[in-house]
């Protein structure tokens, strides 16, 4: 935790500490997923994150709940919801109302498997009060098709239904069939609901597989001994977007060379996922499909920038492709993918032709990057600070790195410190460091220097919002602005235009 450089007289010390803790937690909640990282094991990450959650929940409960409104990752969102519901007794009625709204809004955004897992955790933790039951019931009621969930997330739905005593009356009605399917399987000779019936028929009929969700059909295909390639080709129309991306290579491998390409439309994929996909390909393939891949990356970046496109002026970026950006076995090449996605996103955000991206390895071709070599961040930052072709200094300098500057250690921080103090005291260039890796030992993302705003990042698409948060970490804005910002985000998130009644800070 770094002390801000300038402290206003009006802010008390406790306020500043509180504001710092909030930023620390937000950074952690965006980056940490409890998975193995390049430098720390999964257990270290979970232990560190667990402490941070408890610390913030006990000391700043309102902020803890309000962080549900930010772009935090799914792992932390589920964790926060669980912790809030577990300790509902510590909140006042007013807080509980706000929390309830935030939880409902966040659950609606989470992917269903994660929500079902969360419900299972609540059941295991013995959290079963009227409020929790209502939250689960409302979420289930909002599901478009419980029959689909009953097939695809069978154990999860069953556990949730049992936990909240979901009434599944016998007789007719959509819920009764789901109840029969979950709790009294094999009783009904056939189901009215198409997918439930397809599941029943899939036990003996291969044709029914085409009607089932991909993950469920996979199991039946194995049972029927279907060939994987044949199965994938048939199941393609019913796959989700990410399933299609995941099985793309396997399907491409069996396609005959002159057959019509049944390829996924890459341009509709989210930017960071697309970058991960690109990096999973070999160099030859990337070079062969250069036009297609970089076109898709550009399109995804343009879509992600939305209204911000072209509004950032001259942008220079330092992107980390050192060996540590290879991530871990669980988060394979994640930091590098974030850097690659940021590269394209910043290109779209910058004014046309006013973007310059520098990789730490000195690579010139963004499409062919690979995680290799040391991290000479200091020298690259110097290169990036050089004025652009039009002779003007950049308006923004964005550094995408895990913060382990090691050739030599700490040079980047020193360069930025001296440069800020001696060469750019008027702050013409805004420097922001975004870090995709949670440092378990520091309870935060690793920083380069005290004066540089650092924000955690999970998906490159969130970059514009993150830069807004990172502003608060620079220490030039006070806690009051930070809390006002949180309030605005909460209000927008829970769908209330007005700001009263949602106050995050007392």
């Amino acid at each position, binding site marked *: 935790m770094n002390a801000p450089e300038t402290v206003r007289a009006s802010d008390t010390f406790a306020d500043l500490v509180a504001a710092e803790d909030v930023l620390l937690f937000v950074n952690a909640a965006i980056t940490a997923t409890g998975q193995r990282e390049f430098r720390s094991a999964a257990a270290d990450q979970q232990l560190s994150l667990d402490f941070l959650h408890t610390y913030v929940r006990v000391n700043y409960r309102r902020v803890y709940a309000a962080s549900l409104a930010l772009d935090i990752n799914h792992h932390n969102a589920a964790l926060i919801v669980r912790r809030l519901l577990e300790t509902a007794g510590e909140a006042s009625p007013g807080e509980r109302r706000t929390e309830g709204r935030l939880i409902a809004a966040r659950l609606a955004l989470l992917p269903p498997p994660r929500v079902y897992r969360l419900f299972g955790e609540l059941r295991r933790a013995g959290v079963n009060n009227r409020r929790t039951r209502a939250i689960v019931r409302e979420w289930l009621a909002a599901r478009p098709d419980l029959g689909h969930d009953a097939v695809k997330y069978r154990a999860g739905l069953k556990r949730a239904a049992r936990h909240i005593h979901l009434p599944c009356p016998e007789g007719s009605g959509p819920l009764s069939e789901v109840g029969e399917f979950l709790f009294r399987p094999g009783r009904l000779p056939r189901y009215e609901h198409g997918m439930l019936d397809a599941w029943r028929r899939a036990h003996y009929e291969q044709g029914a597989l085409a009607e089932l969700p991909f993950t469920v059909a996979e199991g039946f295909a194995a049972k029927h001994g279907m060939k994987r390639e044949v199965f994938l080709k048939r199941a393609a129309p019913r796959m989700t977007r990410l399933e299609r991306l995941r099985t793309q290579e396997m399907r491409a491998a069996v396609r005959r060379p002159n057959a019509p390409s049944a390829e996924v439309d890459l341009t509709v994929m989210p930017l960071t996922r697309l970058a991960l996909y690109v990096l999973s390909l070999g160099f030859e393939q990337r070079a062969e499909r250069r036009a297609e891949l970089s076109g898709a990356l550009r399109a995804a970046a343009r879509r992600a920038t939305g209204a911000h496109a072209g509004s950032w002026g001259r942008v220079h970026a330092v992107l980390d492709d050192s060996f540590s950006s290879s991530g871990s076995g669980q988060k394979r090449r994640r930091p590098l993918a974030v850097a690659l996605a940021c590269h394209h996103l910043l290109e779209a955000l910058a004014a046309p032709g006013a973007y310059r991206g520098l990789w730490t390895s000195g690579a010139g071709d963004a499409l062919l990057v690979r995680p290799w070599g040391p991290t000479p961040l200091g020298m690259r930052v110097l290169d990036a600070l050089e004025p652009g072709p039009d002779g003007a200094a950049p308006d923004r300098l964005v550094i995408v790195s895990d913060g382990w500057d090691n050739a*030599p250690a700490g040079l980047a921080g020193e360069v930025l410190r*001296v*440069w800020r103090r001696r060469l750019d005291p008027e702050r013409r260039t805004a420097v922001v460091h975004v870090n995709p890796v949670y440092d378990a030992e520091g309870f935060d993302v690793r920083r380069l220097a005290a004066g540089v705003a650092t924000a955690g990042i999970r998906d490159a698409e969130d970059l514009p919002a993150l830069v807004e948060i990172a502003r608060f970490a620079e220490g030039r804005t006070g806690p009051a602005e930070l809390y006002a910002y949180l309030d605005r985000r909460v209000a927008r998130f829970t769908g209330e235009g007005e700001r009263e009644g949602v106050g995050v800070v007392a």
Partner: protein
Amino acid sequence: MNRLELTGLTARPSQVWGGVRLVPLVREAPVEGLRLHREVYEGLGAGIVELGPRTRYVSYVPHGLVADWSGEGGPGPETGRKSAAYGTQFGGGGAPRGIQLPPVPHHRQAKRRPGDRLRFLPLHLALEGYLSLHFGGPSTAWEEWSRTALRDGLSPRAEDAYLGRSVRGLGDALRIFEIHPGQCGVMVYVCDALAAAFVVPHPDDYRLLHASLVEDLYGELVHQHALYGAPVPENPVRIGGEEHIRDLGELRAAARVQERAWEEAHDTLFSRELLDTPYAFDKVYRMKSFTLWRFLPPFVRDGGGQHIGETITDHKGQVAYLKTFRLSDPQIRRGHLLRTLSGAGWELDRAAVALGSSREELVRRMRAAGFSALLKGSV
């Protein structure tokens, strides 16, 4: 030749993890005409080595190195197949992995292979050189020496070493180390004490052999430092005199100065004990313009580290390959005692004078160093 010449190798900024500091050594250009390949042996490192007729030892032999001075370039498919005859080759794409090792002992520590190739067992050469120091025992049958000493010499002679995996933090430090472009070597420091130096002729060889450092042997001191020592500071750079910096060019120059400062600091401060020590070199094998040596330190007791090791040098005496092992203090003491005794013709009184102490003191020291069996009980 009595010193190690590391010309052509430049130290780059160190990478620290816990108590382990790894300093990469980078070559401007790879050494011409010599490549090193690795062969991995089956059996989790348990191997038998045949030293001569009816002399064998059982030891930890995780891998061997094959020096190739045929100048055929990288480990192509043909050379890969050749060297995979007794083990696994990581370099060759088409080479089969994990060939069964026939249950025959390794014949000698350094063994010529078909073509211009030499297989040798890394660190075994060096350790054997240390263990066999005055192994024959007293050259003159003075009455103080026991009958065992006169008959069998120092046999059995044993020393302890630790596997790299059991050195706390070393495995992690090597795993997360970011290899520099052109890197041909590394210096391993544990608690800022030089634990090992490793140099190869070519960057590609280094990339394949980097992970093998964790299977190497390390001295007792290294193990203890890693176990009980505190994490070492990373020494982040500090740009001084910032008030004189007026533009970006001067800032860049100041940053360059920091980079150079580290190189000089490393050469003069860190690796000095390795480079400034006169060694006794012992030629093992001659391969055209390259020579494989093993070396022993002078066993002086000045508090600094003493390293044994093996090296391949070119005709100019520059190091193409180097692997060292840091001796612990008791090991240095034993080496020192043996050197002094043999220098004094194994005569206790003369040796005591050379050591500047009394005969009783020398006997006490010998017994404390584990050489009781050499002396008669009545001495």
